């Protein structure tokens, strides 16, 4: 029976020749992940099971990234609980402040997730790793605790949706704009319980950083996972960093999809998602006059080197508007170092931006840039829900790094062509 890439990976991990959408399977996991918010709950549940050790100390990965460096005593207690557990269990992959990164930037960078994997994480944006041609999905802390103990998890095999992107990407339009446009088209439950498979010539030409951004936001359409067929770019990326052997899976040409979407992106303009839904998108030229108080460039969605390069290109020799606080957060220490070596960090600081150590921070209204009532931010993050970046009466607009950087200069939501 022909299968999609998602079905093939799940079948392999369930020890089966084939699986069909709707089937319940128990699958072996290659890696499980949690952070400083979700791990404490998972650790508590883990001990309730009555086991003493995790199934594999190399494959249980803990990354404190949400409220670190710790913002208050309670968050410090939570991070300590994670750190203590990592030490007691002799976990190979625990990442401390100063050597860490935002989990979904860090794991692919470190070669800890590889093509063909099944990965679960107690964080909804775990779906990011689909960009490598892996099956990766977010779960809660109890599911994670069970998988930490057993190395297995049950899944319902999802139906797949296929998205085919054709044409030529215009200037300033990248992975973020593609995914925002797609979510705007299908809605925040347009892919509920389903796999989103991103394909076509535009995806083949898209950088790995752009692919991570796209798969990262599959959850914002309700999807179980986002996935991109692995190719030469994938191979180039994983070569030299993969910590384990990997397998490339590809959908069969006759595989069944619940629906196929075709988009010609040649005339797509940079996208902006208005409050309070990632599906509330429009082209930046239709944004109107929206003044902003804060600009954030970072997060597991757009905190990678390519994102910083795009922002720096626009900010080079220019100044952040006097009414704007601009915060730039490189996704990992490695990205931070590379951005320094390329002079990007100097560009940000000279432009009047604040640059932070890696953290999820403001994206979820944790710290490092919380909004007051009535304030407005444009951010390269992934959610613009009510109260997401701070006060419930604040507003978040989502965009790619080009629009965010241009908006920092003018103090209102701006097309990059207007400033460069």
């Amino acid at each position, binding site marked *: 029976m022909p299968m999609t890439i998602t079905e093939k990976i799940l079948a392999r991990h369930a020890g089966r020749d084939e699986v069909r959408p709707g089937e*319940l399977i128990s699958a072996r996991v290659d890696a499980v992940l949690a952070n400083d*918010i*979700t791990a*404490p*709950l998972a650790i*508590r*549940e883990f001990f*309730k*099971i*009555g*086991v003493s050790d995790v199934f594999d100390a190399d494959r249980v990965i803990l990354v404190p990234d*949400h*409220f670190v460096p710790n*913002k*208050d005593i*309670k*968050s410090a207690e*939570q991070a300590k609980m994670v750190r203590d557990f990592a030490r007691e269990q002799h976990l190979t992959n625990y990442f401390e402040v100063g050597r860490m990164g935002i989990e979904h930037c860090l794991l692919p960078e470190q070669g800890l997730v590889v093509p063909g994997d099944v990965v679960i994480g*107690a*964080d*909804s944006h*775990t779906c990011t790793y689909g960009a490598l041609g892996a099956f990766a999905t*977010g*779960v*809660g*802390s*109890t*599911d994670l*605790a*069970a998988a930490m*103990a*057993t190395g297995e998890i*049950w899944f319902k095999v999802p139906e797949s949706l296929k998205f085919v992107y054709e044409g030529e990407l215009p200037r300033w339009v990248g992975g973020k704009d593609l995914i925002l446009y797609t979510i705007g088209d299908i809605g*925040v*439950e347009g892919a*509920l*319980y389903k796999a989103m498979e991103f394909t076509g010539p535009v995806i083949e030409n898209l950088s790995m950083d752009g692919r991570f951004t796209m798969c990262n936001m599959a*959850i914002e359409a*309700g999807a*179980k996972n986002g996935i991109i067929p692995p190719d030469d770019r994938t191979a180039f990326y994983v070569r030299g960093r993969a910590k384990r052997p990997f397998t490339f899976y590809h959908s069969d040409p006759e595989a069944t999809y619940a629906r196929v979407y075709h988009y010609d992106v040649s005339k797509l303009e940079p996208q902006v998602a208005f409050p309070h*839904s990632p599906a509330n998108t429009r082209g930046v030229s239709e944004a109107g006059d929206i003044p902003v108080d804060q600009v954030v460039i970072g997060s597991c969605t757009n905190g990678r080197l390519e994102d910083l390069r795009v922002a720096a290109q626009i900010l080079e020799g220019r100044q952040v508007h006097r009414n704007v606080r601009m915060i730039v957060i490189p996704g990992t220490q490695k990205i931070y170092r590379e951005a320094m070596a390329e002079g990007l960090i100097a560009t940000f600081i000279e432009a009047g931006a604040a640059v932070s150590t890696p953290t999820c921070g403001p994206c*979820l*209204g*944790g710290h490092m840039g919380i909004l007051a009532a009535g304030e407005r931010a444009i951010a390269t993050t992934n*959610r613009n*829900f*009510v*109260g*997401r970046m701070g006060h*419930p009466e604040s507003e978040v607009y989502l965009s790619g790094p080009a629009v965010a950087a241009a908006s920092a200069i003018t103090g209102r939501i701006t097309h990059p062509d207007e400033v460069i």
Partner: protein
Amino acid sequence: MKLQGRAWKFGDNIDTDVIIPARYLNTTDPEELAKHCMEDADPSFAARVQEGDIIVGGANFGCGSSREHAPLAIKSAGVACVIARSFARIFYRNAFNIGLPILECSEAVDGIAAGDTVSVDTATGVITNITRRETYQAQPIPSFMQEIIAAGGLINYVKGKAVE
């Protein structure tokens, strides 16, 4: 299991950020979480909700962040059950895993008004609106999920498997 309580109505796409805002995620204490349950959707909810009440949401209830603190906050606020048109998938798993009964039923969402007294039979999926003298049939809970409930949640289910 038979439940009965007053209905609280919420709209579509109630995300886990409004169910329990991240500013309260520096604790895992269910009692603390309960104090801020639904705060950014209805700031008065936590103070007014009573033991046994039922939340009735629209489509895609529990979307967004995977934080299990969301169903925990709802359960520990005393809410007995959540009925919605549909649930976001991570929330759906989390709710069963921590033992919060949830049911998908568009008919009930359309028929139930805020403050109605509603009873729910989780085994059969029959929802009765006592105030309006109507009954609705929810999507039956998949048998696999019923096994998890019967075991008393996922952790007990896994414990059972470890013994095998």
